[in-house]
């Protein structure tokens, strides 16, 4: 029975090639766009590349200092003093590392200017994240304590500054000061929120050490646990510790707000503007994303319904004969739905590969620095799921309409 449906679906597909093309085109384009969006979002939060251990850590980034009345506040990323008082002394994490958000540096090479993204880190950062070293070593504890002017470059920076040679052991001038290259790592895409960057230096390598007095600075701390199940305990310890806030000038600020988040929560907080709320609104975010996808599929669905309805006529004789020989409505509906699902899935597969092609195009265009999208079976599965919904919705109404056709009227058309 089912096999018959598939054979009919195949024959129908070949019968009017223009209509089949129009159907497939609509479905494929829709799915391609969805694939691109979902893959990009998923690449933000997936544990891949240097962030492969991300299920093992929480990040503390946003800090807000306020007075009791909340009439005045100071908000940005964590400063070094905040880290010292509220993060570095936590007892539950197995390891704590931190880094500064990337700032634009300046390197001059033969009269041209490079503006690499420079990240300042501590030594633990390199143990928590898992960079792929091409040569050399990471920034180590003594680099950090002595404030050495050493740097780790990514592969692209190495070739831009030093050409094809191995840069380890060589020197270059960054922001007017000489730095020695100690390591070279593979490029990390710009969209990896913790590991992206082009040049990494010890946080203590700045000329000015005043950042150590700042409550609000540019730092993000990573709280690492061997056992991911212990992350909630770490979060509780961190949040409880915020109650013991004491600002340098107690008159000015009496409260501090901050959160320890997974990568996904961090992304959601930026989108949902929920940076300091206890609940990151992750559920609402997912719901909104799902809603947006359904809304995006509305137009293609209506389009497909219209086409399907007008194609019923084509099948009038077939329906008439089947009805005359006693086929029940349900059988006809089932048949039409199977046909529509086959079409949707076929379009879905085409659309998926089209989406992959779009993603390659985005990678090649350099719009997102060092973009390297990994497309996995989860996205493919989600895409197929969306296509099944799509196929069902766009098939039900035309199928009912077809099945209800009066056999006499249908046969008369033959």
């Amino acid at each position, binding site marked *: 029975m089912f096999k018959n449906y598939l054979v009919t679906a195949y024959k129908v597909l070949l019968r009017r090639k*223009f*209509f089949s*093309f*129009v159907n497939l*085109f*609509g479905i494929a*384009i*829709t799915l391609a*766009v969805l694939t691109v969006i979902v893959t990009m979002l998923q690449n933000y939060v997936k544990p891949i590349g240097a962030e492969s251990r991300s299920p093992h850590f929480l990040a503390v980034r946003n800090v807000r200092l306020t007075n009791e009345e909340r*009439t*005045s506040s100071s908000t940005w990323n964590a400063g070094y003093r905040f880290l010292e008082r509220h993060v570095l002394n936590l007892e539950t994490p197995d390891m704590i590392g931190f880094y500064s958000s990337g*700032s*634009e*540096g*300046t390197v*001059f090479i033969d*009269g*041209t*200017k490079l*503006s690499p993204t420079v990240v300042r880190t501590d030594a633990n950062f390199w143990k928590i994240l898992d960079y792929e070293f091409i040569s050399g070593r990471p920034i180590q504890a003594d680099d950090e304590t002595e404030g050495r002017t050493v740097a780790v470059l990514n592969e692209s920076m190495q070739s831009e500054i030093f050409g094809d040679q191995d840069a380890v052991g060589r020197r270059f001038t960054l*922001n*007017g000061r000489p730095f020695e290259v100690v390591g070279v790592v593979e490029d990390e895409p710009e969209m990896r929120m913790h590991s992206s960057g082009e040049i990494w230096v010890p946080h203590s390598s*700045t*000329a*000015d050490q*005043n*950042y*150590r*007095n*700042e409550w609000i*600075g540019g730092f993000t701390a990573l709280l690492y646990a061997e056992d991911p199940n212990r992350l909630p305990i770490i979060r509780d310890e961190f949040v409880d510790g915020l109650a013991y806030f004491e600002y340098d000038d107690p008159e000015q600020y009496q409260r501090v707000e901050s959160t320890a988040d997974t990568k996904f929560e961090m992304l959601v907080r930026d989108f949902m503007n929920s940076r300091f709320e206890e609940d990151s609104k992750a559920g609402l975010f997912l719901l909104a994303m799902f809603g947006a996808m359904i809304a995006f599929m*509305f*137009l*293609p669905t*209506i*389009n*497909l*319904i*219209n*086409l399907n*309805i*007008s*194609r019923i*006529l*084509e099948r009038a004789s077939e329906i008439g004969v089947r009805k005359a020989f006693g086929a029940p409505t349900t059988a006809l509906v089932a048949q039409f739905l199977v046909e529509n699902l086959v079409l949707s899935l076929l379009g879905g597969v085409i659309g998926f590969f089209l989406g992959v092609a779009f993603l390659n195009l985005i990678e090649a265009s350099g*719009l997102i620095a060092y973009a390297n999208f990994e497309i996995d079976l989860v996205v493919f599965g989600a895409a197929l799921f969306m296509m099944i919904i799509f196929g069902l919705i766009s098939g039900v109404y035309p199928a009912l309409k077809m099945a209800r056709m009066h056999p006499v009227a249908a046969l008369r058309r033959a």
Partner: protein
Amino acid sequence: MFKHLFKMIWNRKRENALVLIELVTAFLVIFFIAAEAAHNWWLYRQPLGFEYQDTYEIRIGGLAGDWSEQDGESLHQVLGAVRSHDLVEWAHVAHMGPFRNWQWTSDVTHDGRVVDSMFNQFTDGAPQDLGVELVEGRWFDETDAANPDRVVLINERLRAQLFGDENPIGVDIRNRSEHTENPEIGYRVIGVFRDFRQRGELAELRNYTIGRFPIEDKEQRALTMLVKVQPGLDAGIEEDLQSLIQGIARNWVVTVTSLESLKRIQNREVILPLTVAGLVAGFLLLMVAFGLFGVLWQNVTRRTDELGLRRAVGATRHRIYRQIVGEILVLALLAVAAGSLIGIQFPMLGTFSALNWQSAIEALLVGGALISALCLVCALYPAWLASKRSPADALHYE
């Protein structure tokens, strides 16, 4: 004719309703993107208010702690050294440079009216050198260093909102800010300038207030310098400036960026998402066009007997052609009307800044034209197909 076409559409209302929904949705997609594009195009055509060619922004960073008097001393030396550089035309200190996505905003009050305004500070002569146009009053100069009033200039937009027809020159306005110790600071307006669109060509028009940067006060923290160089120089000048400044102020981290590149990056941030949305919408429209074409083609085939009858009782080919095209155009008209009714809710409610009356009306026109064109193109071939059928064949079909 019209009445008849409506009747034909009404007779097949179920199928037409679905086509109508599709057209309305397609119209709304075009409407939103066209409104955003129209609004940005309008913003782009508004005068920027200053010149940015061959000018560099120099950001003074690396000072995590407080700005010391020593830094103020360095600033004076740096300014002197940069100004005496052979290739430099002028150099000034500003609170913040243009084409960056940051701003300093505060409420300004006068005579019970409260409006918000962006703020910036420049050293004496900077607005003139940047080509900011003075409309009335005067610019500040070194004599204002001894002036007990804090002097400011406001742009025409702020002047209109705060003063209406009053003369603003010499009037004190107040700045309300909850972040300063003194909740209300008075400023004396000494002039009005055309505009200074700090956040670039594609940013919304904003109120703007320019104050004087007190360069003589060495404890005043400086964040940005603007330096204009002679035209036609390469990145070598950036390196020169950086090493020159870094050599004097060793504890600063100095970043030199050309305003032209900042402007390019900033414009790209607006244009890129719009381009992507436009491309996606283009594909959606292509899909709708194909779909519509298919539906019309099938409909014409189904109505062979009806059209044959018309031919048999004397309708010319031309009239059949007109009927098919006319029907779909009426449908397009209905869709545009329904879409417009939904569309004009947005400027009425004021939900999006990009959707004001002007951009909404432009978007309605664009959307209406595109939907009509799309329907027309899709109907041409099916209508021709219908009209070329001979009445004998068509009647035989029954």
